[in-house]
Structure formats: structure tokens, C-alpha cells
């Protein structure tokens, strides 16, 4: 086998000069379409997009550590960046300061650009007259085996739901809260959704009545006309930032920085808010009217620092609890 052309594995210097940027992203259609073409147009940069799941992309970046192929990781949960600090180049965008304090780049390498909240998604055909407004309502025996939830140990949205629930039901280490989690696990009846998307898809497809999911895809389903509705749990919903970062040793460092700056510009943030179903990180940015105004939602704030440093313990605790409750 012949050695491949160097250009393929190592974007050379002159590629950077003509304006190139390699983006790894797990993001959905809307997000990509709203940013990438505009960025290319604005800066005359040619963007190569490689898409895969967040886990796969992080692994990929790890494996390419010595000779990075990509310049930017665009998307993924904030906590995943934090757990792999050695992969990222420190860069704080000048625009970062415009964000609400809670979402600012404190680590030096995590630029948050949109927010995602934990929600419940409900199939309107199947729900009948069962009332679902809160986490508490999920314990209705009629829902046993009809609830879709991922595995918090592997799915970031399921983990977000877990910490959300714990916080809402009494605190991360409160016995009461874990008691609720136990009951919820029994309601799941041993069924575990394979990943984040399986949760909302199974509800939309009518496989499950209710799912523990996140706002973006669910809202999009509603917007596209699926027969589902969003429920913001009355106990309170946590909003977490979606993050972007520059990969350490990126070959197109200048363009990467431009990209980070770009996604924080008010124009782009407005686009996020008005065309997508995400909530822009910039508080001043507009939001579309098909989104429930944030004011109408009970929100609670995650102690991200604590959660990040206790991630493994929480996941293990959940897994053990889950295992102990199976027949």
C-alpha cells in the first residue's frame, strides 16, 4: 500500500494560508447549517466537517493527539471537555465576557454557545388522560415500562437528567432524591434506551409514552409537527451549556480562534435563537416564538463543579442501584 499524500493526514501550512478549518462535530443539521456556510462565506475559509458521535470524536481526538487532524471540536457537553483537559488549547474569546457569568469560559478552553435543558417528552396519542407535569408524575403505575430513559453512565443527556432529578428532588447526595431515583428505575422496568436520540425517537414513534430527554430535539419534533409535547418538570429543569473548544496543536489555529469568536457574535447567537430550537448562550439574543419563554419555565442551577468532580461516583451509584433493582 502506498503512503498516502501527506496532505491527507497533515493539513499543511499553506492549506492554512488559503484558509482551511477542520471541524469535528456531533451536532444536528440545524446547528451546522446555521454556522458553517456563514463562517465560510464571512472569512473565505474552507471548512472540512467530520461528524460522528461525541464519544467517538473525543476518542478520535485522543488518538490523534500527537498529530491532530482537526482544529475545532464543535459541540458536546461541557463536562466532556472538562474530563479531557489535555486535549484542548487554551483560548478565551474576547466575546466570552458578554455571556452570563454561569456560562463563561472559566476553564480557559470551553466556550459555551447554546444551552440545553432537561425536559420530558410525551406522546400525545398514547398519554390519554394520564397527567404528566413533574418528575413525581412519572411514578404513576400506569407508566410502568412505558418510560424511555438512557443510561446515565453512558449517555450525557441521561446523566443530565439524573443530576437534574437529584437536584430537584433534594440534592445530589440526599437520600430522598436517591429514593426517588430508585422508584424511577423500577418504573423503567429494566428497559434502557440505547442513547440520547433513542429516547425522543421512541416517544415520537409511539414506542414509549414518555421520555426523559433534552429540549433541542424535542422542541424540533414539536415544531416539525410530531404528535408530542414538551413538559418542563415543575420541580425545575437544569440548563446546561453546549460547548466548543480548540484542539491542542491545531494546524489552523488562527481560523480556529476566528471560529470560536464567530459563534459568540450576537448575529450568530441571534440565528441560533431564531432559527433553531436551542437557547442561545447570550442572554440578549433573540429567541423564536415557538419556544416556551424561559420565564415560564422553572429552572434550577446545577453545581457543575461539584458534578464534574463527582461524575464517576454518581454514575457508579446509579449503576449499582439499577443493578440491585433488577430481578
Amino acid at each position, binding site marked *: 500500500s502506498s503512503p498516502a499524500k501527506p496532505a491527507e493526514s497533515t493539513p499543511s501550512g499553506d492549506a492554512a494560508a488559503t484558509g482551511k478549518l477542520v471541524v469535528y462535530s456531533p451536532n444536528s443539521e440545524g446547528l451546522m447549517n446555521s454556522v458553517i456556510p456563514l463562517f465560510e462565506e464571512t472569512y473565505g475559509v474552507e471548512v*472540512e466537517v467530520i461528524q460522528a458521535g461525541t*464519544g467517538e470524536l473525543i476518542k*478520535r481526538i*485522543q488518538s490523534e493527539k500527537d498529530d491532530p487532524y482537526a482544529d475545532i471540536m464543535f459541540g458536546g457537553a461541557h463536562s466532556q471537555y472538562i474530563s479531557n483537559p489535555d486535549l484542548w488549547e487554551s483560548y478565551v474569546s474576547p466575546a466570552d465576557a458578554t455571556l452570563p457569568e454561569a456560562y463563561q469560559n472559566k476553564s480557559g478552553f470551553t466556550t459555551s454557545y447554546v444551552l440545553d435543558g432537561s425536559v420530558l417528552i410525551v406522546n400525545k396519542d398514547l398519554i390519554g388522560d394520564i397527567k404528566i407535569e413533574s418528575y413525581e408524575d412519572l411514578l404513576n403505575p400506569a407508566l410502568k415500562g412505558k418510560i424511555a430513559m438512557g443510561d446515565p453512565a453512558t449517555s450525557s443527556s441521561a446523566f443530565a437528567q439524573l443530576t437534574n432529578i437529584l437536584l430537584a428532588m433534594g440534592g445530589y447526595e440526599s437520600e430522598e432524591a436517591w429514593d426517588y431515583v430508585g422508584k424511577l428505575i423500577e418504573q423503567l422496568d429494566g428497559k*434502557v434506551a440505547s442513547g440520547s436520540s433513542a429516547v425522543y425517537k421512541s416517544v415520537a414513534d409511539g414506542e414509549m409514552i414518555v421520555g426523559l430527554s433534552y429540549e433541542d430535539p424535542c422542541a424540533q419534533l414539536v415544531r416539525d409537527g410530531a404528535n408530542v409535547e414538551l413538559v418542563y418538570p415543575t420541580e425545575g429543569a437544569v440548563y446546561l451549556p453546549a460547548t466548543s473548544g480548540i484542539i491542542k496543536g491545531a494546524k489552523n489555529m488562527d481560523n480556529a480562534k476566528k471560529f470560536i469568536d464567530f459563534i459568540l457574535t450576537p448575529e450568530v447567537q441571534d440565528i441560533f435563537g431564531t432559527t433553531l430550537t436551542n437557547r442561545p448562550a447570550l442572554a440578549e439574543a433573540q429567541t423564536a416564538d415557538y419556544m416556551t419563554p424561559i420565564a415560564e419555565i422553572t429552572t434550577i442551577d446545577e453545581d457543575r463543579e461539584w458534578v464534574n468532580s463527582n461524575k464517576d461516583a454518581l454514575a457508579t451509584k446509579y449503576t449499582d442501584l*439499577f443493578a440491585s433493582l433488577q430481578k
Partner: protein
Amino acid sequence: MKNNHKFKLDIWGIITLTILGLYILFLVLPLGTVLYQAVINKETGAITLDYFTKFFGKKYYSDTLINSFQVSFWTTILAIAIGTPLAYFFTMFKIKGKKFLQILIILASMSAPFIGAYSWILLLGRNGVITNFFKGVGIAIPNIYGFAGILLVLVCQLFPLIFLYIQGALKNVDNSLVEASQNMGCGGIKLFLRVIIPLVMPTMLAGGLLVFMRALSDFGTPMLIGEGFRTFPVLIFNEFMSEVSGDDGFASAIAIVSIVVTAIIFLVQKYASNHFSFTMNAMHTIEEKPLKGMKNFLVHLYSYLVIGVAILPQCYVIYTSFKNTKGLLFTEGHSLMSYEAAFKRMGNTIVNTFKIPGIALIIIIFLAVLIAYLVVRRRNKLTSTVDVMSMIPYIIPGSVVGIAFGITFRNKFFSIGGLALMVIALVIRRLPYTIRSSVAILQQIPMSIEEASISLGASKLKTFFKITMPMMASGIISGAILSWVTLISELSTAIILYTTKTKTLTIAIYTEVLRGNYGIAAALSTVLTVATVISLLIFMKISKGKDITI
């Protein structure tokens, strides 16, 4: 297994060493760089067996091994039970639309992302099309989730493997054996059970091994429809790819457990197939005969039914590709809108879809027959080692292979290019299909034909390429077809290694699924299916006249 040949540094000795070297470079080295984590404590760097204790200590984890075994065992049994008679019918009898059906069977073995299990959910899920149809007429049918569903999906996907293997093997059964049996009053089912099965047993064991391992290492299906039925490949995948709290060390430990399991199963299989070592010289191949009456009807019914069910998910995908879409949803009405979008995005993926697997396939065939020859005709410790090693990549999750390749070959030291790396990774992962079928067939080819060639002054290599290889053709081809369709639909390694220049249709389908464009994904899947059919037709055209499977 007795060794039949001392190591000698002749041409075959050199080939042995070369292949061994390649495996050390491209298998042991990369996997070693990843899997060593299994015995290293992340914090202290000390050697530890904690991960293994964790795996075997917690029922939550160790149960996955039992679950996986259950799935694999029954999948293997059912795939053999379904695939073998089908291959037999296709060889013995005239069946209407045989060529077409054969292509459908091969298609059923393709498991492009999103096609397999997800289509089954749409068909047989709690709200599936078929489920609802039966509900409508008042029949409650079991849904797809859990053990039974996994079994259904895997069997539909894997019986083609048995089918192709056995069909290849039947090409090497001399017609006179069938006749002798019929002549002694042993026809029909008895003939099948008492003569045909034992004669193709080495191949059946080889095919069974591949099915078993594939079922054992498959994570896509149990992940999507397992719903809590946990198998250990899912565990490995989740630990490696977790978005939350994965642990590479633990994942590596499980991977090592699976390698050990693979090796044991493989050796058991080798031992078992030793009991069926005999050679056959098929001068007259079995001729297909027309059937009449009830028998004819039943044979057709069986064939159409099995193939019909197996091909359902593909059909459903094709159907959905013509549906209108809106965002994440399929909506009422039909159009070509998905195709319009799909063709805009296809770019060079269609070329890559054939270029990359094409190169890989050539290398695969070349290596596989060489390895098969070494394993069968030059059996010694070294070649047996090569044999065992060749099976390991088959069971390691593709993404692990991808990661390992990335770490090992994407750095200042190696810097192997994208295309080359993809090809190499694909080759080692899809080699086993062709190796196993070639080994099985070669075991049954009598030495005297090769001796005749040597006595006529042909060199060892020439004998191999001019005589042995053509005689192995039916086996090589059945393996190569499987290698081919699985190469085309390969995803998990490629997703770690691809760039836009090496993006294939399969990757495109997966990224469209990620982006939420199910319509486009369905359209691309259909394009992939059509392209595969075309490739198979071309293949049939080229190899026409020669004595091969299709």
C-alpha cells in the same frame, strides 16, 4: 490439532514470516497500545488486575457474558438451521428467480447503520407497522425488544453467511456421492442429514464460528433493541465511547476477556472440524434438478419466506426513502425530495465506497488464500499463531481498532495516510470471512491434484496460483462476497479514521442519521443497496463460466 509441517525457510516460510510480521505491526502493536491499559492502574501506573476483578466480581457486568453467549449460541443454531437447507435447495433444485434471490440474500447480510435494527423497530416495535396491522385484526404479536428481537435481527442478518459458505462447499461435493446415496434409498431429508451435512461439516463449522463470533461481538443490535438485555460488546463500546464516565482500562479488560473467549472458541472449533477432515475430489459438481408438485411448492415457499422476512428491513428503508420528510419526521405523501438532497451531498462518497473496499478486497483475497494455504498445508506453530491472530480483529469492536490505529499510526513516527490506514484497518477486520471459507474448502481438496502439478514441474507458488487457488474458487468467492458487502457497509472503524477525502456512503448515512436527516439517510441507504447490487451483478458477469457460487 497436529502439526503437519516443520517450519522451513522456503518460499512458504518466508511468506509465513512476512504475514506474521504484518500482524505484529498492524494488530499486536496497535491493540497492545490500547489494551495494555487493562492491567495498569490509571492513577499509580502499577500493574493491577482490578479491572478483571471488577468485571467478574459484579454480576451486573459478568452477566453480560452469559447473555452474549445465549444470543450467540442461539443465533448460530438458527442461522445454520435456516441457511443450510436454503443453500441445499439452491444447489439441488431449480428455483424460480434464483439469481435474484441470491442477491437478496447477500443484501440481507448487509448491516448498514440505521437499516437493520431501526427498521425492525419501525416494523415490529410496540407501534410498528406490522404490529399494528396484527393488532388491527386482533392478534397480539410479540414485539421486537429484548432477547427474541436480537435473535431475529441477528439471524436474518447472519444466515446469509451460512448460506454462502455452504453453497460454496456444496460446489465441491461430487455428484456421485449424492447419487450413491439416493441409489441406496437415502434421498430427500435423509440424504441431507446423513450425507450432505457431514460432507459440508468443515465449512458449516467455519461458518458457524463466524456467525457465533459476529453475534458475540455485535453491539449495534443489542444496543438498539436490547432494552436492558445487556451484552458485553455493548459494555465495551459504552466504556470506551461513554459520554459520561467511561473507563478505557475497564473497556480494555473486557476486550481482553473477549479475545480470550474468541481464542478458546476458535480452538474448540478447530478441534471439532478435525473430526471431519477428509478430502473430496469433485469432478462432477451437483446439478440442479427441477422439482414437482408439493415438494416444489414447499421448497419455494420456504425459500421465498425466509428471504422475504430477511429482506424486510431493507425494503422498508427503500420505501421510506420515497416518503416526504420534514425535519426529523417522515410526513404524508411521497416524492423524490430525499433523493434530491441525497445526491447533492453524496460528493465523492460513492467513489470512495467502491475504491476503498475495492483495494481492501484485493488485498484480502490475496492474503486470505495465502493464510489459508499456510494454515492447512503448512501447519506448524507459527502458522497456527497467524491463524489465531487473524480472528482477533473480527471480535474486537471496530471503533477500538480505529482508536488503536489512530494512536499507533497517526503520529510523527508512522504517519500513515488516511486512505492507507483505512484500507489496512478494513483488511484486518474483514479478512476472516475469506480466510475461514478458504481454509474450509482447502481442507477438502485432495493433495494429489497439487502433487500432479508439482510432478509436472510447476513450482510451489505456481502450483498454488494455477491449481490450488482455482480449485478453491468456490470457497474463496463465498468468503470474498461476504468480505465485500461487509466492507462496503463498514462503519465503526471508518468513523474513527475517515476524512472528507475518504468518506464513504455508509459514513454519509451515519452522519445524516446523526444530523437527524432520516429521509436522506434512507435515500443514501437505497443508493448503497443499488450500488451493491450492481457490484454483485458485475461480479457475476466477470466470473461467469467459472465454477463459482453465483
